């Protein structure tokens, strides 16, 4: 008998602690939710504005989005958001994520901005697992390498030069790391090709 009362007592106490712990977590979550969403919005906006100057467009870029289904050229099977920058009603640039599937250590997620005329507004790595000290120079926080894409397009350099130097192209690899830059150069090239083919669809007005 005594055993049962112990079990019940301990069980109830455990349940009480579980309720307490869950309430504290939910309370915190409820109180931080809006702030976190706002922070993430600001971070995303800052990331986009690092590529496309916010003086160059006047629409609300975070709501003027187009959801596109998985595209092979962008390295993903999942739906992706395309953020569209416009001035007046003229398209200015599109910003979207693209994935380089063949990094040294798995996928590298990129944010790519392309002006309407097909030149790159810029590229940033937003997620990667490359080797610290070698492949991670693709991160703008560690090196300027990724900045060189600004202003390039499929005609400058020509498509056959969109390779790292080791493969006979125009882009520097890093000492001790060729695979990482190669993956990114290829992914950026594919993203440009995708943009080139689908440009007008990408800027279609959002359905009201």
């Amino acid at each position, binding site marked *: 008998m005594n055993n049962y009362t*112990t079990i019940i*007592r*301990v*069980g109830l*106490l*455990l349940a009480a*602690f*579980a309720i307490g*712990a*869950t309430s*504290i*977590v939910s309370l*915190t*979550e409820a*109180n*931080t939710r809006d*702030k*976190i969403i706002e*922070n993430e919005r*600001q*971070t995303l906006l800052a990331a986009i504005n690092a590529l496309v100057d916010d003086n160059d467009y006047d629409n609300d870029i975070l709501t003027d989005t187009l959801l596109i289904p998985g595209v092979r050229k962008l390295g993903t099977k999942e739906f992706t958001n395309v953020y569209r920058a416009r001035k007046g009603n003229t398209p200015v640039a599109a910003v979207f994520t693209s994935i380089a599937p063949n990094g040294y250590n798995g996928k590298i997620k990129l944010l790519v901005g392309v002006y309407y005329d097909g030149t790159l507004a810029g590229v940033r790595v937003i997620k990667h697992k490359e*080797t*610290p*000290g*070698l492949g991670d120079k693709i991160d703008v*926080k*560690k090196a300027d390498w990724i900045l060189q894409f600004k202003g390039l397009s499929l005609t400058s350099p020509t498509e056959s030069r969109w390779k790292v130097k080791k493969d006979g192209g125009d882009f520097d690899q890093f*000492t*001790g790391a060729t695979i990482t830059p190669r993956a990114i150069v290829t992914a950026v090239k594919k993203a440009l090709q995708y943009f080139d083919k689908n440009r007008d669809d990408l800027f279609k007005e959002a359905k009201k």
Partner: protein
Amino acid sequence: MNDVYGPIIREGLWKNNPALVQLLGLCPLLAVSNTTINGLGLGVATILTLVASNGLVSLLRKQIPEEARLPVFVMIIASIVTVIELSMNAWFHELYLILGIFIPLIVTNCAITGRAEAFAARNPVGPSLVDGLMMGLGFTAVLVLLGAARELIGQGTILSEAHLMFGEGARNLTIVVFEDYRGFLMALLPPGAFIGLGLIVALKNVIDARQKTKSAEINVVETVPAEA
């Protein structure tokens, strides 16, 4: 006062250092110690969690049922980590973008459950908080030392990317020790972490052994004349 806290401080920082003696929390320790700044970041996040969890466990120690204390500790620690993560994300977003990746790693740090069980569940709040702080500092010291050693051997610098933690002004804190260093990748990869930690543990043992023989010698010197 000193009698209570003195030993706690010595235990946490040296005698019972969580990383060197208890060998707890190795998963985050080995994974994130590839640079000085990464080590410091994880260290700071761990100190926060350790102090909060020790304090809370100690506060509730009379209510926590002896038979089910481990699940309760796990719940407390997991809630604390989540609350810290959410609050940081909301109010210290910049810092969160840097330390954020380290915080979930703390849940895998058994040093925290270890201190809850070994200390906080049996001691009043004051000493428990100090224990959490000292164990956290001891852990951080090893993280920073290991991080600095791996960074130095791996890429020839110390404190690279300090601006990630201290802001743009800290950019020139980075010390390039070897110019044109070609890098030694193994130090940055997981094997470097294991070897590095092994060497630090060995160093600590050597220092301890030296001290033991020294105090033994003193005893001998003192006792010899007495026998003569």
